């Protein structure tokens, strides 16, 4: 097994780069980071729309979230693969096709995480801001969202782990990423599938486990720091951080 890693670590780490497209673990991480960075603003908008007092804002947002929750990620990926190039009028690389699918799919799940964060805040926060003369949007932007986003940080890391796991499905449409690199390696070596797929699984495990553990650590830290502050003791139930995790 070590021999396989020694001979092929470049392929597994960065794919064919610089002689071909970037692939391997680096591409997997870049895909997940780009997906999260682009999905995040969309998710905040969706979450805010979902708790809006106006039904004509909250209903469409709820519909989007439910439709995405009811669709397999692979279907979203194929839509991104076929429809995005038609919509933007030019061909799209595998990398951006996958990022597009991640943004479409994850925005809905992230929005639910952020919504849970907002709804877990004590009502007094909003009331205090409103009585200080802040309008709806200033209350949201300066008082509610900063606290809600900070409190949902562990859940957001959990969601990032989901994104990393979802990038593996790029394999199905031949996007250059880690799983694809390993499958290439497997068909090159032919006779060592156990070794190759064990390397693949262990590497994903190390990356994702490190992240989930740090999310747990952060969650405890945040819970402690909130308990420590006087006057907030009666606040909010703890939201279950992995409850909405979408997961392949």
């Amino acid at each position, binding site marked *: 097994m070590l021999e396989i890693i020694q001979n092929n670590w470049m392929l597994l780490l960065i794919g064919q780069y610089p002689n071909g497209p970037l692939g391997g673990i680096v591409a997997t991480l870049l895909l997940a980071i780009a997906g999260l960075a682009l999905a995040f603003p969309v998710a905040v908008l969706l979450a805010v729309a979902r708790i809006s007092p106006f039904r004509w804002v909250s209903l469409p947002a709820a519909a989007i979230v439910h439709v995405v929750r009811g669709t397999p990620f692979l279907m979203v990926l*194929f839509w991104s693969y076929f429809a995005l190039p038609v919509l933007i009028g030019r061909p799209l690389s595998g990398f951006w096709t996958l990022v597009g699918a991640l943004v479409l799919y994850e925005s809905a799940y992230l929005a639910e995480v952020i919504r849970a964060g907002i709804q877990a805040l004590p009502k007094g926060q909003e009331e205090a801001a409103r009585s200080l003369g802040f309008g709806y949007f200033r209350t949201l932007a300066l008082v509610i969202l900063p606290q809600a986003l900070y409190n949902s940080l562990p859940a957001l890391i959990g969601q990032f782990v989901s994104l990393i*796991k979802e990038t593996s499905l790029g394999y199905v449409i031949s996007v250059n990423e880690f799983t694809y690199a390993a499958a290439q390696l497997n068909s090159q070596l032919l006779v060592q599938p156990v070794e190759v797929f064990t390397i693949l699984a262990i590497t994903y495990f190390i990356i994702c486990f490190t992240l989930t553990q740090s999310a747990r650590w952060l969650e405890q830290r945040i819970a402690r720091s909130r308990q420590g502050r006087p006057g907030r003791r009666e606040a909010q139930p703890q939201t279950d951080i992995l409850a909405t995790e979408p997961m392949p």
Partner: protein
Amino acid sequence: MGYEFDFSAVLTDQYIDWLLAGLRVTLLLTAGAWALSFVVGTALAVLRATGFRPAVWFVSTFVEIHQNIPLLVQILFWYFAMPEILPESWREWLNRNNSEFILAMIAIALCHAAYISEALRSGLRAVPVTQYEAGRSFGFNYIQTMAYIVVPQALRLSIPPLVNHSLLLFKNTSIAIAIGVHELTYQTRQIDSDTFRTFEIFLVATVLYLVLSFIIMAVGNLAERRLGMGVR
């Protein structure tokens, strides 16, 4: 966009047969994996609840491994690597009996069993200790207390996450396309490459998935309303 939708090209008798065949495999895969994952998940949760150190260690390792590796990688592992490890006779049996389907079902079931055992565990922890104490003081022994008092409440408390994971399991059966299981997504692609009516056939398939997902969500809501414990 100037694209002319033409559903009559994809909804001929032949393609409807293909779709229905795919739907059948998707439903079979969902049902098989769901049943297996609930059996394994419950067994894991019970093992963990015993508090016996090696058992707890085994269950938490199982859970972490299955939650931190992509399901696709688990399916690929079962398909490409597992048959090499299994004894010769098992491999022959698998090859004779539609190995893709069985291996995909096992991989999906074990992965989701990890999530289900976690959902059950948090349900068990949410039942107040006084319930257990009350059961014991009525003269029930440990097993009776668990079976008649604690577990039924824990199950009801876990309905929302269990429904959530059932839905995810159903959606994740589409990943079995990666090893060539002839489920709904696979048949959709077949029809697509046969007719080049990409948007129509993917629209039909997406609506099929959505309808089934909404049925699962509705059944979940019903179960939650009929059996759930409400907010405590």
